Every structure is written in structure tokens, then in C-alpha cells.
């Protein structure tokens, strides 16, 4: 149970000190106040769970104090001490929300029992609140997950349906381009216009294809293929894939890996996707001669990778939008706005976490944690290694 102090409020110094001393002897954390005002100023600076207050005090009396405390600190409980002949004070105190009252002279045992009961009540209420808010968070998360899942199914459907006609446009356009490239077509009227229009169609197909392919990545089927994954090898591999763009911009990439890097159980294909997207982002953000640093190190039952770039950074006002689908600052055709959205989906699928810090003009830091999924896999029988479902 929590260790917030019990406060004794009484104007009679001897009585107050005696109670405090005796309660302390019994191992309780006790503080004392000589009047209501002092008690309230104490509570400003530190939380007090249980207040034991005399009713009869000069100035602010116990009932007034009770009202103020109940109003300001509804989580606290107050035990009132009444004079022997004034039990009605206690009753009206309970009506105002006091936990209980004791008539003076009080028995110490009785007081301790009451204090513990009050603490117990507070504790239970707190637990209940925690449970309610936990349930609420889970519910919100489930709603979000379900929405994303159905969005994913829809997106995959749309992407798939669009890919087919897109493929037809692509082949038709390519066919016409081939025909127009023949020697005997060289002098047909307005050939330049036709070539120009076909080039536009071709570019647009590529652009639309990027979008549909990204959408399909996002809506991957939920079955991961868990095998041993060496994250640093995957990163080195990914850097190799991006070598051309890196050298084109003369970007310095430094990779620091902890020497004792364990391999983890996860999905290598998905992780490659994560790093490909993240490194591509970092490269795009960097000016010529920029730097990208990658730190990989073990963290409880998993691996953490930090990717920092010296790029343009993200303005603060955009930070809460970066994981939204179709949010991009690139010009149309250059970015789909699905990169980080896809990454977030994958990281969550792999039970990991991703966080992003950025300072506009200084660069961006992405930190990813990926857990070893073997233990998790054992628990759920449904996911089998190498099994594939349509």
C-alpha cells in the first residue's frame, strides 16, 4: 500500500503530539498540523491520504476543513474526532463525506483500525480506477486495430483491383511506345506530341503503382514467418540496396553495433521493409554530404536500433501527423505518404515499438525496438513457422 503520510489536525498541542508520537511508534508515517489552514498548506505540497481532524478548532473547524478537502482532494479520506458529548458533529461530518468519526477520548487501537480501513478504501478505489482506465485503453486499442484491419482489407482490395487495369494501361502504353519507336514511324505527323503523352501515361502508371504497392504492403496478412534474424546483417544488406542513392548524395553512413548482438526471432522480410523505408526517408531528408548514423544494441529480450540523420527534420506542427496515411511533404508523385504508416503497422505486427524525435533544421532520430517473438509464438498455436494461408 502507498506510503503517503497520515495527518493529524488538532489545536491542542499536547493531545496532537501524543497521538503523533504513539502512531509513529506503531510504524505509521505521520505529520501534524495545528489548524485547518496549516493542514491545507501541507496538502498543497505533498499528497496526504488520510486526515484525522478534530472537529472543534478555533478558526476553521473540522467540518469546514472536511468540506474543503473533499472538494479539492476527493481521493482523500477524513476521520473526524468529536467531543464526547457531541456525537451529532460526527454524524453531520459523515453526511459531508467523512470516512468515519471517533469520540474523544479515543482508543489508539481503534484509531489505527480506522486509519487502516480508510487507507484500504483509498487503495481499492485506486485499483478500480486503474482497472477501468486499463480496460478503456484496451478497448480503444482494439477499436483502432479493428478499424485498421478493415481499412487494410479494403485497401488491399482496392489496390489489387486497380493493379489489374493499371497493368493493362502499362502494357498498352508500352506497346504504343514500341510501335512509335520504329524507323518507319519516324515521320508521322505530331509524333512529338504522341511521345510526350505516352511518357506522361507511363510516369503516371509508375506513380499509381507505387501507391498500390505500398497499400498492399500495409495490408499484409497477419501471419509472420518467424525465423532467426540478425538485425545488423539486414541493415548492412539494406544499405547495400541503397548504395546508389547514398553515393549520389555523398552521404556518410556509420553503423555502430554492439559486439554481442544476439539474433532474434522475427520476420526478416518485414524487418527489411522497415529499414528500407526508414533509410530511404533518412536519405531523402539529407542534403548532399549529410550523415546517417545507425546504432544497434540489445535491449531486454530484443534489439533496439536508432537511426539518426542530419537531414531537414520535421517541423513540430507536423509531428502528430507523420504516421497518418497519405500524409507527405513531398511533391505529388515523389512520395506516397504511406512510408511511415506502413512501418508503424509492421512494427506493431512484430510487437515492437517505434518512436520518432525531430528538430526542424537539425535532423531526425528514429528509435525502433523489436522483440524476440519465439516466446510469443509458443503461446499462440495459430502461427506456425512457414505456414501460409491465402
Amino acid at each position, binding site marked *: 500500500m502507498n506510503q503517503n503520510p497520515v495527518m493529524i489536525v488538532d489545536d491542542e498541542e499536547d493531545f496532537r503530539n501524543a497521538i503523533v508520537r504513539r502512531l509513529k511508534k506503531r510504524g505509521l508515517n505521520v505529520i501534524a498540523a495545528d489548524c485547518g489552514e496549516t493542514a491545507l498548506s501541507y496538502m498543497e505540497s505533498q499528497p496526504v491520504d488520510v486526515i484525522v481532524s478534530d472537529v472543534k478548532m478555533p478558526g476553521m473547524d473540522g467540518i469546514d476543513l472536511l468540506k474543503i478537502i473533499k472538494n479539492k482532494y476527493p481521493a482523500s479520506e477524513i476521520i473526524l474526532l468529536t467531543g464526547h458529548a457531541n456525537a451529532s458533529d460526527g454524524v453531520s461530518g459523515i453526511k459531508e463525506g467523512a470516512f468515519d468519526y471517533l469520540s474523544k477520548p479515543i482508543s489508539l487501537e481503534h484509531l489505527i483500525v480506522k486509519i487502516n480501513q480508510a487507507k484500504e478504501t483509498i487503495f481499492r478505489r485506486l485499483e478500480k480506477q486503474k482497472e477501468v482506465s486499463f480496460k478503456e485503453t484496451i478497448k480503444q486499442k482494439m477499436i483502432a486495430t479493428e478499424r485498421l484491419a478493415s481499412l487494410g482489407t479494403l485497401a488491399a482490395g482496392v489496390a489489387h483491383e486497380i493493379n*489489374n487495369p493499371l*497493368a*493493362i*494501361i502499362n502494357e498498352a502504353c*508500352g506497346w504504343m511506345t*514500341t510501335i512509335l519507336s520504329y524507323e518507319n514511324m519516324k515521320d508521322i505527323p505530331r509524333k512529338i506530341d504522341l511521345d510526350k503523352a505516352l511518357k506522361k501515361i507511363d510516369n503516371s502508371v509508375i506513380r499509381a*503503382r507505387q501507391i498500390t504497392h505500398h497499400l498492399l504492403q500495409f495490408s499484409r496478412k497477419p501471419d509472420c514467418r518467424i525465423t532467426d534474424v540478425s538485425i545488423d546483417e539486414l541493415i548492412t544488406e539494406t544499405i547495400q540496396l541503397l548504395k546508389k542513392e547514398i553515393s549520389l548524395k555523398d552521404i556518410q553512413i556509420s553503423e555502430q553495433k554492439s559486439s554481442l548482438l544476439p539474433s532474434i526471432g522475427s520476420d526478416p522480410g518485414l524487418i527489411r521493409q522497415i529499414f528500407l523505408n526508414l533509410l530511404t526517408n533518412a536519405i531523402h531528408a539529407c542534403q548532399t554530404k549529410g550523415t546517417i548514423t545507425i546504432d544497434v544494441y540489445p535491449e531486454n529480450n530484443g534489439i533496439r536500433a536508432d537511426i539518426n540523420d542530419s537531414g531537414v527534420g520535421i517541423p513540430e506542427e507536423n509531428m502528430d501527423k507523420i504516421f497518418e496515411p497519405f500524409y507527405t511533404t513531398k511533391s505529388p508523385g515523389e512520395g506516397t505518404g504511406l512510408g511511415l504508416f506502413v512501418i508503424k503497422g509492421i512494427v506493431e505486427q512484430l510487437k515492437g515499438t517505434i518512436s520518432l524525435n525531430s528538430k526542424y533544421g537539425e535532423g531526425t532520430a528514429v528509435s525502433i525496438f523489436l522483440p524476440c517473438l519465439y516466446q510469443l509464438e509458443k503461446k499462440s498455436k495459430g502461427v506456425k513457422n512457414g505456414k501460409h494461408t*491465402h
Partner: protein
Amino acid sequence: MVSIPINILLVDDEEDFVEMLSLRLEEKGEKVFTAKSGSECIECLEKQSIDVIILDLKMPGMDGIETLKHIKSQHPLVEVIMLTGHGTAETAVDGMKLGAFDYLIKPSDFDTLTLKLDAARKRKDEQEERIRQAEAKLLLRRSGVI
């Protein structure tokens, strides 16, 4: 350089796609046969000599993977390039484990397709050449020359 046309069998239920891609491949000088389903594909294989099959994985009826299994069991030397509209490469990777040569995601880049077609035909030619040499050797050994 005179290039020998590749005998291609294009299998996809999307008729317009089959038409346009085959026109484009023929324009390039390849010989293209078409099939609208897995069973048509298998029928065609019985009649024609095919080098490379371009096979869509998602078709009604007999799907791409089933068709692939059949092709690989009946005509193991024919190379298969899979086309997948479904962006996940996993089905395609499964296909490659079953013996497909490679895969492409729709809509695909024509140059990439061309490269893969050439590579697939090359592998088939080389394999057939090895078989011929092995057969020749066997024949020589049998007739006691070696």
C-alpha cells in the same frame, strides 16, 4: 544480332491484359501463346513447345500455385515467371520454392520482364544442353567407346 524468339505462354484471366502484353511481346519478336486459366494453360502445354510461362497467381478455378505444381510435375524444364497482383511476395516466394524461375509484381516494368524472360530461357537452354550432353555420354559409354 538475330535473336531467336522465345516461345512464351501467357496465362491470366484478365483478357485485356493478356491481349496487350502479348501484342507488346510479339512486337518485340517473341512468339506468344495465351491461356485464360490454369486448365487452358495445361492443355496448351500438351500441344505447343513452350520455353517460358508467364503465370498470374490469382485466377479463378485452378489458381497459380496449383497450376505451377502441375507444370513442374509434367513439364519440369519449362520455366515459369509468376505475376502477382497481390503485392505480398510471399506467395511468389512459395512459388519459387516449388520451382518457379522468378516473379514480378503487376503492373510490372517491361524491361525487367524482358530481362527475366531472357534469363529464364537461358536457364532452360542450358539445362537442355546439359541433358543432351549427359545423354550423349551415356550413349557412348553404352556402346563401349569410353
